[in-house]
């Protein structure tokens, strides 16, 4: 009798759409994964496609100048060690965040640039989300444009990917929403007039028209966390880097578009 009641109740709940499917089943199948680009209007796509209309390319030009600028007490530029970024940085952004043996954990591209500054240039870190770090990151990432995302396979990284996935699946904030509730379950719908999208990380740093500037993946993540009215993480926080790691593993094989334009 109890069993019958339970079956009746659960079928009623399912009919009413109240019972959530198990989280693991809601992940987007690989064949249905789409870049944010595919959700954009033809005008915005055209802006990204033409290097002379894509405002992100200004960051690439400025980043190239910074790549060659000597700095720090070692008086070295990025180019002094890494030479031509077109060769040495090709494919790098496609596998970041990557494992740092000294720190024993993941570092994203911005953090790698600042680690390089500290370890090899003896220079002060560039502040997060400010012009110089964004431009330099954009220049480095642009060298991998068109290449498929190939996450760093280091075994030591896998627990951090799992932590990022947990955070992605974890409901938080006053709206009590997890990333997955929008970006896995409802990516094909709209919030007001804006496409929800799948939350793919394949164009960062992006030139976001809403920001009127370049911005990092962490800025975008912080936007969403504010949106669900949860307590935010600081730039460079381990939680955000873990989330970046999971997002990159979720976008495996998708071509990098940096500098992407987004509405």
């Amino acid at each position, binding site marked *: 009798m109890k069993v019958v009641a339970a079956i009746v109740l659960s079928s009623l709940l399912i009919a009413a759409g109240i019972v959530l499917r198990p989280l693991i089943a809601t992940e987007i199948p690989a064949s249905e994964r789409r870049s944010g680009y595919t959700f954009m209007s033809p005008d915005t796509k055209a802006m990204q496609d*033409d290097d*002379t209309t894509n405002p992100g390319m*200004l960051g690439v*030009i*400025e980043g190239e100048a910074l790549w060659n600028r000597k700095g720090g007490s070692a008086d070295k530029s990025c180019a002094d060690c890494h030479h031509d970024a077109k060769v040495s940085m090709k494919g790098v952004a496609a596998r970041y965040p990557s494992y740092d043996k000294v720190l024993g954990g993941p570092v994203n591209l911005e953090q790698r640039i600042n680690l390089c500054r500290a370890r090899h240039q003896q220079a002060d870190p560039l502040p997060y989300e400010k012009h110089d770090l964004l431009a330099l990151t954009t220049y480095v990432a642009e060298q991998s444009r068109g290449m498929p995302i190939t996450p760093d396979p280091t075994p030591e990284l896998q627990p951090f990917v799992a932590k990022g996935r947990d955070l992605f699946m974890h409901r938080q904030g006053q709206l009590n929403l997890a990333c997955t509730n929008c970006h896995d379950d409802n990516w094909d719908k709209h919030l007001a007039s804006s496409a929800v999208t799948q939350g793919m990380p394949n164009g960062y740093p992006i030139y976001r028209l809403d920001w*009127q*500037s370049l911005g990092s993946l962490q800025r975008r993540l912080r936007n969403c966390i504010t949106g669900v009215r949860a307590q935010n993480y600081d730039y460079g926080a381990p939680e955000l880097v873990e989330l970046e790691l999971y997002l990159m593993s979720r976008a495996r094989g998708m071509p990098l578009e940096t500098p992407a334009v987004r509405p």
Partner: protein
Amino acid sequence: MTAALINVPKKARNGDIIEIKTLTSHVMETGYRHTPRGEVIPRDIITSFTCRFEGDEIFHADFFPATAANPFLSFFTTATKSGKFDFEWIGDNGFSQTASASITVE
């Protein structure tokens, strides 16, 4: 640090109408915004843009607040002879940026 992106066709035939596209980096701060403490963020915009062909002005634009950051301009001209286009942006706080591009007219 500023940068400019110019798109001028490298070649054209005499009499062709050509499109010139320019993009320059600038914050275009309107002067109407306030900090969280209530202080006005001072205006910092590009105020004028000029394009010259072989020294002669062929296009000019004045800018005002409420133009988006990193302004993009597109305009047309008729190709009559080979030569050099000079571009100049002037703005608040002594901002000045120049760029140039050449065209071959057959």
